[in-house]
């Protein structure tokens, strides 16, 4: 079946270091979304990427969608303790139906 793999599963970084999580789909996606889930909370939408090769920025967060629309990445520059949580990608092979990645849990050490 269709799968969305996400790596790494866990990442511990020192505050101020950069962080990247990668998402790979077994099939071409119409779009990809990214969500953040704080410990004990629920997923919260961050961004949606639609176009091949698209790059979007939100302050210290940079999101990329691959040329083949099968992979994506989230990069955080100079992590802060407020970045702690699990980051999920969600790929849409077709409208409405999103397949979530397994998530990357980020811990930031002060």
């Amino acid at each position, binding site marked *: *079946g269709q799968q969305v793999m*996400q790596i790494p*599963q866990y990442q511990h970084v020192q505050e101020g270091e950069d962080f990247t999580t990668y998402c790979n789909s077994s099939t071409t996606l119409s*779009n990809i*979304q990214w*969500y953040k889930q704080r410990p004990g*909370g*629920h*997923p*919260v*939408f961050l961004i*949606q990427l*639609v176009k091949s090769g698209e790059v979007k920025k939100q302050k210290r967060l940079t999101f990329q969608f691959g040329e083949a629309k099968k992979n994506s990445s989230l990069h955080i520059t100079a992590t802060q303790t407020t970045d702690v949580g699990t980051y*999920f990608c*969600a790929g*849409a092979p077709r*409208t*409405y*139906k*999103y*397949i*979530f*990645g*397994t*998530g990357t849990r980020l811990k930031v050490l002060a």
Partner: protein
Amino acid sequence: DVKVTQSSRYLVKRTGEKVFLECVQDMDHENMFWYRQDPGLGLRLIYFSYDVKMKEKGDIPEGYSVSREKKERFSLILESASTNQTSMYLCASSSPRWGGLAGNRTDTQYFGPGTRLTVL
């Protein structure tokens, strides 16, 4: 402000019981979803609904059914709960929005707080 509520934060049931999980959204969204979240497996789609009385199976529908009689409410039913259905259940809703110069469509999913179900 967007709001998705779920009937319980924590629920404990016994094997074989019939379990109802309720989800209500106040945003007039067309689409509603039920996911389960398990460590190391991420969120897996159980069922979704794109309109009242319409439903479609997700990736793991076995052992579950759903009901959507009103637009704002989407119920997940475990006909006969089993221990392997112990999990965190998340409801979400969405509605397409168009914006930007290119008129791109965005399907933001808004999640409820989740119900942690334990089946003994």
